Structures are given as structure tokens and as C-alpha cells.
């Protein structure tokens, strides 16, 4: 896995100004990477496979037009030997048919909390339980959505610093 995903997707080389600026916040930079690892490649993926995590992350990156992160997650997904379903859900423009109720519920939640978190209510969590997710699955999914959205904002802000 990459040394530092954000440096990699923004093409920050060791000598660049922005690379050196990030190093001034070494703990933050390190924990951003380890948090990514914990959300995408935890030691026990349990009910959300590595391929599914990468596919959902690619989808979220596309929802916010984060081209760099979408490319990164497409590559990660490719390394996980995805089946057709995972590839299809990695792009919100595709509308695959015949998904399981569980996966439909997961995708709906990912899209809602990525684009309009303010509209989320108790009923949205109840839908996840109704689709068969347990307590830990729901926290796993919430963490993944939160981490990827954090990464999207960090990447957008750093891109602004890099280009100005």
C-alpha cells in the first residue's frame, strides 16, 4: 500500500513546498494515513470486504468530483479482484440492477451521508438495521464514509495550496 495516499494522489514530491509544509504537521500526516488504513484495510474486514470498501470509496470520490481520489480507489479496487457488482457500484452514474437489499441500503446511505449529511435521521439508521446490518456494520460503514469525506476535503484544500 502507498506510503502516503494524499502525497501520491496530489503528486507531491519530497522537495516540493507543499510536501515540506505537510511534514511540519508530521503527527497529523501520519494519523491521516493510518486512519485510511484502518478504514480501507483493517486487520479484520468482517462483513464489508476490502473490495467493497474500495468500491464505495471510489463512488464517494466521484460524488464530489475528486478525480485524483477516484483514480486511486479504482486502482485499489483493481488490486482486490472485484466482481462485477463492485465495479458497477464504484461509479454513481451506473445503475446496476438486481442488487441485494443489503447493498441497495448501503449505497443509499453512502450517497446521502456523503452529499447531504444534514438530512440524515434516525430512520436512515433503521433502514440499515432492516437491511440486515448489525451495530458494528453500521459503525464500520459510518467510519468509512467519514474517513473518505475527510480525505476528499483535505485533498481539495491541499490542491488549492498546491496550485496557488
Amino acid at each position, binding site marked *: 500500500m502507498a506510503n502516503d495516499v494524499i502525497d501520491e494522489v496530489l503528486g507531491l514530491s519530497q522537495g516540493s*513546498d507543499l510536501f515540506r*509544509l*505537510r511534514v*511540519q*504537521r508530521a*503527527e*497529523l500526516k501520519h*494519523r*491521516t494515513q*493510518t*486512519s485510511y*488504513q*484502518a*478504514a480501507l484495510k*483493517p*486487520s479484520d474486514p468482517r462483513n464489508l470486504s476490502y473490495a467493497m470498501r474500495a468500491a464505495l470509496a471510489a463512488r464517494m470520490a466521484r460524488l*464530489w*468530483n*475528486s478525480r485524483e481520489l477516484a483514480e486511486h480507489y479504482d486502482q485499489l479496487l483493481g488490486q482486490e479482484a472485484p466482481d462485477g457488482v463492485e465495479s458497477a457500484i464504484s461509479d454513481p452514474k451506473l445503475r446496476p440492477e438486481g442488487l441485494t437489499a443489503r447493498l441497495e441500503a448501503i449505497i443509499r446511505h453512502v450517497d446521502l*451521508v456523503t452529499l447531504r*449529511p*444534514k438530512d*440524515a435521521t*434516525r430512520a*436512515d*439508521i*433503521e433502514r440499515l438495521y432492516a437491511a440486515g446490518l448489525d*451495530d*458494528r456494520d*453500521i*459503525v*464500520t460503514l*459510518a*467510519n468509512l*464514509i*467519514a*474517513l473518505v*469525506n*475527510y*480525505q*476528499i*476535503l*483535505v485533498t*481539495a*484544500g*491541499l*490542491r*488549492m*495550496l498546491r*496550485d*496557488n
Partner: protein
Amino acid sequence: MAKEVVHEFTLDTLGWDPYVTPVDLDSATPQQLEALKVTPSNRKISAYVLVLAQEAEALAERTPLFNDIMYSEGGLSRGGRELGALAASIVNRCVYCASVHANRFIANDKLPEIIEEIYARGVKADLPEKYQAIFDFGVELTANPDKVGVYQFYHLREVGLSDLEILDLIHAVAIFGWANRLMHTLGEPVRGG
């Protein structure tokens, strides 16, 4: 007093009721106890953190990340970071997060009128120059991360923010893009009870 769910922004101290079952400390795994930093003298853990402990591996990384973003030495002032956190929480309507960080902003910068204006006018708040630039950036990065560019950058530069201060602001806003998506979606703010 019965508990009441709170939907409006407030400076009151609120509670938080989870929609998801928190980890029970008495049956927590060693990894969960480690991530929770539970010690015999510290067993007072909030319901929010006990919910997050369902995913101990992630929580163990997130806690130091959050603390470094909000409290590291130098760079953006404490009040500036709190204002970035608040801007995100206003856009994402995390009433609990807003209450905590509005109060911390006031405790630091002693300017309750800034919070009054933000609570009254939301993302259209009219603020003194430097606070305006910081708040507007937080709103824009949260609401439209794909639109942040040269305009936002020069607005921050005009009020004198250094590269390191801008870096700190980006992360203060982004970590609340994270925190709001947990706190506002996994439970609700309550008063009383």
C-alpha cells in the same frame, strides 16, 4: 425532566443519545479498552465514543488525529480552528458539534457576538474581516469541496493567513466533515433527562 431532542443551534450543554448500541465496558475486548484509553481511574467514557469503539482499530487512530488537528502548537489560533469546526457543523447541521465548538470559540476569543451572528444568519453571517474569511472558507470547503480554488485562497491570504495557518484550517474543517458525519448520523442531541 423528560428528554427532549434538540433541532435548533444552541449554546446550551447538550447530551447525545445514540441510535446504535454502544460498547458495554464490562464486556469490551482488550483492543476496545486500549482504544478507549480505559484505566481503573477513568471509566467515564461518553456514549459517542463507546459507539465508535465498535470499530476499535479506527478509533485508536482517530483520537490522536483529532487532537493533533485541534490542539497542535503554533499555526492557526485555537479560536480559528474552533471557527472552522463550527462552519462545518453549521453546514452539516450537527447541532451537538456546533454547541461544543461555539462555546469553545467564545471561551477562547471572548467574542460571543460572532456566534450570535452565525446562529442568527447561518452561512450568510456578516463578520469582522478575518473571522469572515475563516468562516467562509469552512462553509465553502464543506458545502462545495469541488469548487475551492484561487478565489478562496486569496481571500485567506488577504487577511494574512500563512501557509501553515491555512493548512491547519483545512484540517480543522475536514475533521469536522468527518465528525459531523458520525455524530449527526449515529445519534441525536438531547436536553434534560
